[in-house]
């Protein structure tokens, strides 16, 4: 089937009429080119939008307290309550498949008064009391020193990890940061590390101006008692936090004597729901790209089929002779099919190569001109390319089927008589 003579013949047939072969090949070339470019553009858009989510673990909800809106067990509505440290433990005990349950407390905020002092420098920063897991829910690079660890939590050490923005406003350029002390609301904290967030969001500057301290030390230093301001809860990768969050709320509601149907008492923001909406959008976009690309490719395939019909017609006599000499019908069918598949694959490969070149050039332009909003690194992965190749082989086969059948439909005696 794949002998040297067969390949020689395929090449002979396809090269007898170069111009026609090229025109035919162009149909397939163009189809696969459009398909790949569409997919790459979709991917670029997707990458751009997903970049806005940064490295944040997207399977996360943030949860805080609001006023109770239903009377329950003799307690009135409009009541305020606080999360307690016990709630954290209760959630961990009662809800499965949660990866992190991080209680957080916070000082300061947007436009707050100066709350941190070092020597003669002062600034207004967000100060958090956190557990070590927060670094996985809000990923950041530690550029100097280390992050908070459990020893800090247990010993209630007054240590702090500061952002690069904090460092810039409290320290001189060349000054050593690790081992110095900063005063947060009059309480001295030892600086043990400097972080940098990779997020390139609009508020990136604000994100570098945060200070992380151990949750326990924070509560003690600022008289939080066992109160918890809010929580960041992340589910295990295989489970969706959107499915698990109701059971989390249930635990909290039971602990605080809140009516089970009270939907307002616990406020939350579901990052995953947001994220999945965007993921769905891009899935739809990809579907459209496949649809349009495949249709364009289809017209190319029809072109190949058409030309193969003409080739078969032209070679009717030759095919007749070969059958008279004893070539089996299957061999002739195979020959026509292979010609068709070969033509499709070669032109398809050229299309893929050309599309890759264009994508490379776009990436090159993006790299040299700086980032463009909502569009980053358009690309197709090897999976898409193999799907495209599969489509090509199948369509080459389809394109050759009818011509191959035509080739053996004519009886050899009639074929030879054709002058």
């Amino acid at each position, binding site marked *: 089937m794949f002998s040297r003579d067969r390949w020689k013949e395929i090449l002979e047939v396809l090269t007898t009429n170069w111009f026609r072969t090229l025109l035919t090949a162009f149909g397939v070339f163009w189809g696969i080119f459009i398909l790949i470019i569409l997919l790459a553009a979709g991917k670029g858009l997707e990458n751009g939008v997903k970049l806005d989510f940064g490295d944040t673990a997207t399977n996360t909800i943030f949860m805080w307290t609001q006023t109770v809106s239903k009377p329950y067990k003799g307690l009135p509505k409009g009541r305020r309550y606080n999360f307690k440290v016990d709630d954290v433990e209760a959630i961990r005990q009662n809800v499965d498949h949660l990866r992190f349950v991080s209680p957080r407390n916070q000082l300061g905020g947007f436009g707050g008064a100066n709350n941190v002092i070092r020597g003669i420098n002062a600034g207004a920063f967000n100060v958090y009391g956190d557990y070590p897991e927060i670094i996985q829910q809000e990923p950041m690079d530690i550029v100097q020193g280390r992050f908070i660890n459990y020893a800090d939590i247990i010993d209630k050490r007054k240590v702090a990890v500061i952002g690069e923005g904090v460092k810039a406003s409290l320290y001189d350029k060349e000054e050593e940061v690790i081992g110095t002390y900063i005063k947060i609301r009059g309480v001295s904290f030892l600086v043990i590390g400097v972080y940098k967030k990779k997020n390139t969001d609009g508020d990136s500057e604000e994100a570098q101006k945060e200070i992380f301290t151990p949750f326990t030390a924070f509560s003690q230093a600022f008289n939080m008692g066992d109160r918890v301001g809010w929580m960041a809860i992340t589910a295990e990768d295989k489970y969706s936090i959107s499915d698990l969050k109701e059971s989390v709320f249930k635990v909290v509601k039971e602990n605080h004597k809140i009516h089970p149907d009270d939907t307002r008492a616990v406020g939350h923001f579901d990052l995953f729901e947001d994220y999945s909406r965007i993921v769905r959008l891009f899935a739809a976009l990809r579907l459209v790209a496949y649809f349009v690309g495949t249709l364009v490719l289809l017209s190319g395939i029809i072109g190949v089929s058409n030309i193969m019909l003409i080739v078969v017609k032209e070679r009717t006599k030759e095919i007749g002779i070969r059958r008279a000499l*004893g070539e089996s*019908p299957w061999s002739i069918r195979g020959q026509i099919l292979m010609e068709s598949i070969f033509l499709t694959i070669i032109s398809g490969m050229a299309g893929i190569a050309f599309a890759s070149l264009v994508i490379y050039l776009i990436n090159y332009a993006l790299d040299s001109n700086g980032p463009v909003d909502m569009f980053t690194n358009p690309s197709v992965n090897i999976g898409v390319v193999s799907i495209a190749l599969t489509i090509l082989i199948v369509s080459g086969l389809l394109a050759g089927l009818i011509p191959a059948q035509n080739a053996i439909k004519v009886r050899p*005696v009639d074929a030879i008589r054709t002058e």
Partner: protein
Amino acid sequence: MIEIKNLHKSYKMGSNSLHVLKGIDFSVKEGELVAIMGSSGSGKSTLLNILGMLDEADSGDYHLDKVEIRNLNETKAANYRNKFLGFVFQSFNLINYKTAMENVALPLYYQKVGRKERQRKALKYLEQVGLKEWAGHLPSELSGGQKQRVAIARAMAAEPKVLLADEPTGALDSKTSYEVMDLIQQINDQGNTILVVTHEPDIAHMCKRIVHLRDGVIEKDEKVEQVRASAYV
């Protein structure tokens, strides 16, 4: 070698059918050189096509080398054609983008003979027809007589039981016709069975036996004194 009994064949032409072969009884022994003669429309080409398994009879028996030829599917027919028969056509029917040697090697390729062996055999048969030096030439670079000789080499390459020639000299002038007939006689001298369809009496008389067809029946079947073509070359 060939046994035919009561062979009938008719073609449908629109509403009426044309009865071409009306009961042919005919046999050929090994090593014979038979000419089938007749005017156009006498059914000689139809008979040859049926003998060549390119066409199928409506009724009657056909045995080729004691194998019954009946209800063959295309794959089987192709296989039998390849193994049993060699064809020589009036219009040569060489494949024009293949060289003389590739053309001769073609039937061997369908027999799945290895590449080296194919080339060796093809050259051997080209040498027999005196065209070894032309092995690398395309059919378009050969004269009519040379083309027919390549075609004969191709027909012989598969070492068939029977060689079927349909007007092998029809497209040639008389001098080249005799050259071709000389070649056919030589092949016959080596013991090969050959059937030649022709309407030229001089060509027919270069065979050993002439079968006259008229209106689909055998009119006369006679043994003749063979005229050697070499006398005219």
